[in-house]
C-alpha cells in the first residue's frame, strides 16, 4: 500500500505519543503538557495531517494503538443512562417548531438503492429544495446523498439551490476493494461535481488493529477529495464496543475527516443514540485538543421527527449549539423528511403548541 500522508520521521516524535494527546488521556503528563488548542481551524485541505502529526501519534501501529487505547474508556451502562436522561428532554411550542426547522435543514436526503433512477433522484432533489411545497417558510435540506453515478443528475437538479450533493464512494458500503479502486471512486465523484463524499473505513483492518492502514487510507481519501468535504463512515454497528467507536472516531479525525458518520444504513444496528453520543463527545474533545471542529453525521434508521429531535438534544447537550449547523451535524435519512414535514404542519396548527406539541419527553423513547 502506498501512503500519501506526509509524516514526521519517528525521531522527531516526542517521547510521549499518548501523553501529548487528548486532555483526557490518562497519563500523568497529559493535562500539564497538552499542546495549547489552536485558535483557528487549520486549512481543511492540508492541515489535517499536520494536526495529526502535531499529536505525534501517526508514526506506527504501535504509537497509534498506544494513543487510541489511552483515550478514556466508555462505560456502556453509564452511557445508556445518559441517553435515557436526555430522552426525557421536552421540546414544546416554539422550541419544537424551531427544532423541526433546524432538523429539516440538517437532513442529508438519501437514496442508496439498486433501482435508483435519474428520475427518482430528480424527484428527491425537488423535495430537497422545497421539503414542503405548500409552505415556503420550510427550509431546504442540507444535502442530497446518492451513488456516484447519479452525482451529475443531482448536481444539475440542485444547481443554485444551496443544497449540497453528497456521494457515497470508496466501495460503499463494504469498503472492500483495493485502495486504488476506492480512491478512483472518490475521484470520480469529485469530478462529477459532488460537494461531499461519504466513504467507509476498512472495518476489517480496524478490528485487526491495523490502525495505521486505516489512518493512511482515510488520509488518502481526504487528499483525493480535494475541495470536497469528507465524511468518514465508521459503521459503528460493526465495531465491537463503545471504546472502539471512540477510537475509530479519533482515528478518522486524526486522518483528516471533516465529519464522522455512524453508519452506511446497510448494516443493523445503524445509528443509535449511544453511538451518536460517543461521536459527539469525541468531536468535542478533538476540538478542545486541536482547535479543529469535526462534524457528526448520524445515518440509518432515523425515521421519525421524534428520533431526529432526540439527536438534536443529544448534540446540543454534549457539544453545544456550535455543532447544530449544516456544516457540523447531519441527519442521514430517506423517509425522515416526510415525518418532519408532517410534524411541522401539525405543530404549525397547534397554537402555542403546549400539550400535544411535546414530542420527545412525554413518552420517553427507548434507545
Amino acid at each position, binding site marked *: 500500500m502506498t501512503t500519501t500522508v506526509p509524516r514526521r520521521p519517528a525521531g522527531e516524535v516526542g517521547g510521549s505519543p499518548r501523553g501529548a494527546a487528548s*486532555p*483526557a488521556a*490518562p*497519563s*500523568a*503528563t*497529559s*493535562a*500539564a503538557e497538552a499542546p495549547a488548542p489552536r485558535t483557528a481551524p487549520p486549512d481543511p485541505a492540508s492541515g489535517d495531517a499536520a494536526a495529526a502529526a502535531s499529536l505525534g501519534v501517526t508514526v506506527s501501529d504501535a504509537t497509534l494503538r498506544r494513543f487510541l487505547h489511552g483515550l*478514556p*474508556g*466508555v*462505560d*456502556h*451502562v*453509564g*452511557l*445508556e*443512562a*445518559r441517553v435515557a*436522561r436526555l430522552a*426525557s*428532554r*421536552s*421540546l*414544546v*411550542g*416554539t*422550541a*419544537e417548531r*424551531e*427544532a423541526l*426547522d*433546524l432538523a429539516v*435543514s440538517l437532513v442529508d436526503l438519501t437514496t442508496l438503492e439498486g433501482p435508483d433512477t435519474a428520475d427518482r433522484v430528480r424527484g428527491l432533489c425537488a423535495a430537497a429544495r422545497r421539503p414542503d411545497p405548500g409552505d415556503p417558510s420550510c*427550509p431546504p435540506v442540507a444535502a442530497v446523498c446518492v451513488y456516484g453515478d447519479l452525482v451529475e443528475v443531482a448536481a444539475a437538479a440542485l444547481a443554485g439551490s444551496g443544497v449540497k450533493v453528497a456521494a457515497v464512494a470508496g466501495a460503499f458500503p463494504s469498503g472492500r476493494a483495493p485502495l486504488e479502486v476506492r480512491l478512483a471512486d472518490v475521484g470520480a465523484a469529485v469530478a462529477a461535481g459532488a460537494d461531499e463524499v461519504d466513504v467507509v473505513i476498512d472495518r476489517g483492518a480496524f478490528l485487526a488493529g491495523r490502525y495505521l492502514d486505516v489512518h493512511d487510507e482515510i488520509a488518502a481519501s481526504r487528499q483525493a477529495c480535494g475541495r470536497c468535504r469528507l465524511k468518514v463512515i465508521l459503521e459503528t454497528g460493526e465495531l*465491537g*464496543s463503545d471504546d472502539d467507536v471512540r477510537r475509530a472516531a479519533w482515528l478518522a479525525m486524526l486522518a483528516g475527516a471533516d465529519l464522522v458518520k455512524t453508519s452506511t444504513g446497510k448494516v443493523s444496528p445503524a445509528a443509535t443514540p449511544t453511538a451518536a453520543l460517543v461521536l459527539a*463527545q469525541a468531536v468535542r474533545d478533538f476540538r*478542545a485538543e486541536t482547535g479543529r471542529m469535526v462534524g457528526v453525521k448520524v445515518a440509518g434508521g432515523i425515521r421519525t421527527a421524534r428520533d431526529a429531535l432526540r439527536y*438534536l438534544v443529544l448534540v*446540543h*447537550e454534549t457539544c*453545544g*449549539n456550535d455543532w*447544530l*449547523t449544516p456544516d457540523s451535524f447531519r441527519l442521514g435519512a430517506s423517509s425522515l423528511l416526510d415525518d418532519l414535514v408532517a410534524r411541522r404542519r401539525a405543530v404549525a396548527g397547534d397554537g402555542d403548541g*403546549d400539550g400535544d406539541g*411535546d414530542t420527545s*419527553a412525554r413518552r*420517553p423513547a427507548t434507545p
Partner: protein
Amino acid sequence: MPPTFRYAPALEPVTGIGIPPRQGLLVDGRTVDPFDGTTFTTVNPATGEVLSELAAAGRQDVDRAVAAARAAHEGTWWARSGPDRVRSLRRLADLVRAGARELAVLESLDTGTPVRVTRHVHLPLVAADLAHHAGWADKLDHAGVGAHPRPAGVAALVLPATLPLPSLARMAAPALAAGDALVLKPAAGAPLTALAFADACRRAGLPPGVVNVLTGGAGTGRALVGHPGVDLVAVAGPVGVGRAVAAAVAGTGRRLVLALTGTLASVVLDDAPLDQAVEGVVEAAFVDRRHHGHHLLVQESVARDVLDRLRRAAARLRVGDPLDRNTDVGPVNGPARLEGSRRRCAAHEAAGAESWSPPCDLPSRGWWLPPTVVVGSGAAPRGSHGEPSGPVLTVQTFRTPAEALEVVAAVPEVRAAAVWTDKGSRALWLARRLGTDVAWANAVDLEASGPVRAGGAAGAGLAGGHHGPGAYLAAGPPPVAPSGTMPAPPSPAVGPPSTPGGGAPFRSAAAAPSPEGPLHPPVPPATPSPEGPAPLPTAPATPSPEGPLHPPVPGTTLLYVGGAFRDAGSGRSDELTGLDGRVLCRVARAGQPDAHQAVAAARAALPAWSATTAAARAPALYRVGDVLAGRRRDLAARLAAVEGDPGAAEVAVGAAVDRWTWCAGWSDKLHHLVGTADVGAGSRLDVSVPAALGVVAVVAPPSSLPGLVSVVAAAVATGNACVVVADRRAALTAAALAEAVAASDLPAGTVNVLTGEPVETARWLAVHPGVDALDLAGVTDPGRAGELERAAAERLRPVLGPVDRDHDWAADPGLGRLTALLRTRTVSHPLGG
C-alpha cells in the same frame, strides 16, 4: 436566518393536583383536627408561596394515632390472611403507579426537586418498592426470622425532607407487608406526599387506622418516638436525626430501623470513563441531591481534565422551575438549608478553597443556590457539615488509591461511595475498602438491590434494595412475658438474639444427658496437648490441668489481653468463693486502662482476623473447641467448684463445647446464607457480602459456661474481634476459655477476656471510640442496660440487648446472634459490553 435550537418552558401541568388549603391529621381513616389546634404551613421552595396549612400534632394526637394503629393492627390488618394483605398492597402499588404523575408533581412542589427526577427516577422506585414488598405479605415465614414470625406491631415512621416519598415507600412497604400498622411523621418541610400516600392506602382498601399521618415539627416527632405504645421506630434522614431517635429509643425495648443519609464520596481514578464519571457526579451532586453533601476525589493526573469537563457539564445545567420538565437544578428546600449550604461553602473557602458557579439567572423568589463547585480544600473544614443538600460539590485531589482511602476515612458521615475506574478489580477492591454499606462502580445513586444489614448504624440512604420485611417482624410465637427489656438487634432481616420464647428448644435433651454421653471425643481425637498444658492463668502456682480441680489451687485468675495473660493494671483483685464459702482463688479486677488496652489489642488484631479467609477461620476456631473438649473434666470441675452440681457442670461443659464447634462451623458458611448477588435490571451486578462489624464489646452472661461460649463464639466466628467481660463468678471458666484461645491459632488480640465488675467495665467500653458494637447479653439490670444502650446510641452503634438471667443458653440459638454481628456491604458493578 438559520433556525436555532433552544428549550422553551415545558411545564408539567398542575391540573388535577388539588392541594387543600388546610389539611388535618389522618387518624383511623379520618381527617381530624389537632387537639390544641396548632398549625404550620408548608411552602413551595421555588416561589416561597404557601402550599397548604397543616395541623401540628401534639401529645394527645399521638396518643390517639397510636391507639388507632394498635387497634387496626390487632383488629383488622394482622387478622387478615396473608393473601388478603397481598391483594390490598398490590392494589396500593397499582394506585401509586397510576397516580405517579400527580405524586411526582406534588413532591416537586413541596421539595423543589425537579419533576424530571421525581417523575422518572423517584416514583418508579416508589412503585417498585410497593409492588415488590406486596408479595412478601404471604411469605413471612421466609423473611429470615424463622417460622411463624409476628409483626413488630405499631411502627412509627419518621420521614426526611429530602426524598420524602421514596423514603416513605422504602420503610412503609416492608412494614405493611409484615403486618405492622403505621404512624407516619413526615418532615415539616415536605409533608404533602405522605398525606397523599395515606389517601392512596385508603383507596386501596387498607383498613382505617393501618396508616395514620401526624404532621408537625420536631416536637411531634419526639412525642411519637417516645410513645410507649410504639413497638418499632424507623427513621430515614440525616445522621443527626438518627442519633437523636436512637438515643430516645435506647433502653425502651422498642425496635429501631435506621436508614440514614450522610455524605457521598466519589472517587475518580485516572483510568475512569471520564464522561460517565462527570455526568454521574453532576447528576448526583446538583440534580438528585439525595445525600447531604458530595465530596469528589479526583486523581491528580486527570484533575484538570475532570474539572474542565465538570465545569462544562455544570454550565449546561438548567436551573429553574422544578415543574419545568427540562429543569435540572431546583431550589433548596427552605431557608435553613440554603443558609446551611452557604455556610458550608464559606467554611470551605475560609479553609482555602475556591468556589465556582456557572453564570445563571436565579429566580428572584424562593431559595436558590446555583450549582457550586468548591475546589481545593480538605474534605471537612470546621463547620462544613450538617444536613443541607444544596447543589454543592466539594473537590479534592489525591495521588494514589491508598491516599484516596485515607481522605475518605477522614470525611465524617460518609454513607455511600462511588468509584470510577475502567478496571473492575480495582473498583471492587476500593469499593470494599471504602467501608460504606453501599458502593457503586461507575455509577451513583442507583438502587442497589442488596440487603442492608448493617446493625444499628445502617444506612446508605435508600440504597438498600429489596431486603424483605425481616426488620419489621419479630421472631417466633408470642413471648409468654412481655419482653420489655429485650430489643431485637436493630437490623433488618436479623432475628432477635435468643429471646426467651424465641425458637423451639432444639436440644432439650441437653438438659439431662448421661454424664458421659455428651462428652463425645473431639473431632481430631482428644489432642492431649502434646506441648503440655496450655499456660494456666493462675499465679503463682500452676495446678495440674488434667486432674480434677477440687478445689482449684488458690491463686489469681488473670486478664487475657492481646494474647498475654496478666494482672489488672491496678493490681486489684477480688476473692472468688465456692459454695462452701471457701476462697477458691482471687480474680483480677479490670480497670479502665485494662479495658482500653483490650480494645486496642482487639483493634490491632482486627485486620489480620477479618482478612482471614472464611476457610482459614473455621479450622482455627475448631481448634479452640478441640482444646476445650480436651479439658472438659477440668472445666467441669471448675464449674462445679463455683456452682455446686457436678452433673449439671458436666452437661454445661458438653453444651459449651458443642456450641463453640457449631459456631466455628458457621464461620465459613454464613456468608453463603446472608450474602446475595443480584443482576437487578440486567445492566448491573449487585454483590452483597457480609462483613464483620469490627470490635465487639461483650458482657458475658453471669455464671453460664454455654452462655459465655455462645457470645464469644458468635463474635469471633463472624470475623469480629471481641473484648469479653466476665463476672467474677465466671472467672475460672472464662480463664479456661482464654487458655483454649491462647493454645489456638487465633491472632493475638482476637479474643480478650476481662474479669471484674462487668457493668462498670462495659460503661468504659460503650463509650470507647474503638468499639463498634455492644452485646449486653449479661447485663441483668434493665436500668444499667438502658444506660449502656443510650451510650451506644449516641455513636449509632449496634447493640444486642440483654438476655434473661434464666435463659437456656444450651437451647438452639438460631442464627440471630451471628447475623446481628455482621453488616452487609453491597457493591454495584456495571455489566456492559
